[in-house]
């Protein structure tokens, strides 16, 4: 049975900042949605369904926000779904929306993900005490630091690699007007001299807390033919999950991530990701996750990811640019972060990434993960209509 090809024809983001005190939650999401509609030159009436995502409801203190946001997102009288798959949610949300088009249930779908972290405190939103269970150790950094240490031990990576990633992503962010952090006078030395937060993660190697939203308009072949700007076509998309904690889990390179990437590559006909993919928007909330995911996603052999980073391959002008937008390290409205990866990948193949455009990008990967490295969502988008 053939699926309908899915095209991204509209993308909108808010300018991401630490606190958007000028808008409500509804105002924030509407801003991104409005920009996506403008990009696609569509109106609210053209949208058949709305799929939204965000990370835990505790981050804003609002239970099931799709109910309150229905009006702001033009969803009244339409189907509205709310996805929640932890940190990978921005990616999963886009995939759920894409499936509505692929299955020919709807023709044109608005998908949006957001987080307004300034409404509360995300670190403590993640740290509610649960009897008889291991706490998340005051935020995500405490959970991930030991796994980074395990990666360093396993691969013999020198302890300078993480700072290279942070320095690169923050410099890339200077070219992205929507990025949260614009640290114009940042130097590699400053990254390396920043305070140690969760050994081996330094302050400048961590993601910020951002307010922001990201929206996309997905449509079918007919919708894409009418679109005013080039479409990004979805060539493959997949989700994979594995348990949080069990004896066989490899926290450094989870099997679910490998399987998810393999599924996406199979759908997209990718046999040599390193050479066939032109840009990667990867979920890197702590700098060391770039070399780790390079291996997990099949861009490098096991133990070799850090060498790609060190050699400059992942720089904006390298052979495999990773996070040309500045990535999660520069912008992190948690629930939206995955969708921003997906949207930035689409911008690259549409040739609309502005100053952080990768020359001639034809195929790009958007990647998201969440929970204790247990939820994965990815898509591969291309400038060409998928075969078949």
């Amino acid at each position: 049975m053939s699926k309908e090809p899915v095209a991204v024809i509209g993308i909108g983001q808010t300018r991401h900042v630490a606190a958007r005190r000028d808008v409500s939650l509804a105002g924030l999401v509407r801003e991104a949605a409005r920009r996506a509609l403008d990009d696609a030159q569509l109106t609210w009436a053209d949208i058949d369904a709305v799929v939204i995502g965000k990370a835990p409801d505790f981050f804003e203190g609002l239970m099931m926000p799709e109910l309150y946001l229905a009006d702001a997102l033009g969803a009244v009288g339409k189907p509205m779904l709310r996805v929640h798959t932890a940190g990978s949610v921005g990616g999963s949300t886009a995939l759920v929306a894409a499936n509505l088009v692929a299955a020919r249930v709807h023709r044109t779908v608005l998908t949006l993900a957001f987080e307004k972290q300034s409404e509360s405190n995300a670190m403590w939103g993640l740290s509610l005490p649960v009897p008889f269970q291991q706490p998340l150790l005051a935020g995500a950094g405490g959970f991930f630091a030991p796994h980074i240490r395990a990666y360093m031990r396993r691969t013999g990576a020198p302890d300078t690699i993480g700072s290279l990633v942070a320095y690169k992503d923050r410099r890339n962010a200077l070219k992205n007007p929507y990025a949260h952090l614009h640290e114009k006078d940042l130097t590699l030395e400053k990254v390396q001299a920043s305070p140690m937060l969760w050994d081996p993660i330094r302050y400048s190697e961590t993601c910020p807390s951002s307010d922001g939203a990201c929206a996309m308009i997905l449509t079918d072949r007919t919708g894409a033919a009418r679109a005013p700007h080039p479409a990004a076509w979805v060539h493959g998309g997949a989700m994979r999950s594995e348990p949080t904690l069990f004896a066989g889990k490899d926290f450094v390179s989870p099997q679910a991530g490998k399987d998810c990437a393999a599924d996406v590559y199979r759908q997209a006909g990718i046999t040599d990701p390193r050479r066939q993919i032109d840009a990667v928007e990867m979920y890197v909330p702590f700098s060391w996750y770039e070399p780790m995911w390079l291996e997990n996603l099949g861009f490098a052999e096991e133990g070799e990811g850090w060498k790609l980073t060190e050699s400059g391959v992942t720089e904006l002008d390298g052979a495999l640019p990773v996070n040309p937008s500045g990535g999660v390290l520069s912008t992190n409205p948690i629930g939206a972060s995955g969708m921003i990866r997906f949207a930035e990948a689409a911008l690259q193949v549409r040739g609309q990434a502005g100053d952080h455009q990768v020359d001639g990008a034809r195929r790009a990967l958007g990647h998201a993960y969440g929970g204790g490295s247990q939820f994965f969502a990815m898509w591969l988008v291309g400038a060409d209509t998928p075969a078949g």
Partner: protein
Amino acid sequence: MREVAIVAFGQSDHVRDSAETSEVEMLMPVLHDVLAQTGLAARDIGFTCSGSSDYLAGRAFSFTMALDGVGAWPPISESHVEMDGAWALYEAWVKLLTGEAETALVYAYGKSSPGDVREVLTRQLDPYYVAPLWPDSVALAALQAQALIDAELTDERELAGIAARSRADAETNPHAQLRGAVPAGEHLVAPLRTSDCPPIGDGAAAVVLAAGDTARRLTDRPAWIRGLDHRIEAHSLGVRDLTDSPSTRLAAERAGAFERPVDTAELHAPFTSQEVVLRRALKLDAPDCTVRINPSGGALAAHPVMAAGLIRLGEAAARIQSGASGRALAHATSGPCLQQNLVAVLEGE
């Protein structure tokens, strides 16, 4: 459109307080039940989707522990909606329609006992203008009930009749929390009496979906999903006509519910007054209407929040599977005063 059916349904016994069991412990027997019905193992399932709410559990990412219970190893294709499990079923149905999976496991659970669910649900409301006033779910439903009475669309006597019928029907439902004759009770929030309101309870439910011939292989009697649609309305109660449910009517229309009569309707109406609204929206109110409404006892007999909608789909499917129904309608709702509604039409072969 690809044929998709419900091939198995299971639910827990719904109880007022399950302090002795965790969410995972509550869910596990139900998952094993539906898998046993189909002979499938977790690793055979093409797609898994669940519905639940962090706010009931009182902590972020509460669904992750349930996933551990599913046994997601080797890794599975899986997703989650922060909604009633009926919408998880919708996501799974769409996934099967794309052809990317042949089978899907859908589950939902909710424990209301750890908190005060009436207060917890106030957190669904507009966070700037309404939620700070803490209007609780029963008070909002009472506003709707009063609007119906004022419009002379019902009265307290009819509401009491709905309560009595539901709980009498629940007599034969071994999973129900409230069964048999239940006194009307005092006004909880006028005009609603205790019998007009759902019991507060904990519970879980699961279904297995399958496509085409896979469904026929897994069961002798698939409950085919002939149509499935859901719609949302404005959030603010002030801009809605609380005596009507246009989103239910539209969803039913899109699901094909009005094309031919149904014989059974499982309606997710936690309050007696909401059944009145739904019956009108679904055209089940004709004097000669013989549709069997909520033979399970409905949400008035058991209301595990986040699973109660999925249970309606499961109960309707079970009626099809047992031969008690040829064409059934199932409905789920979310949000204050029926803000969001889902309708499915199920048929036998």
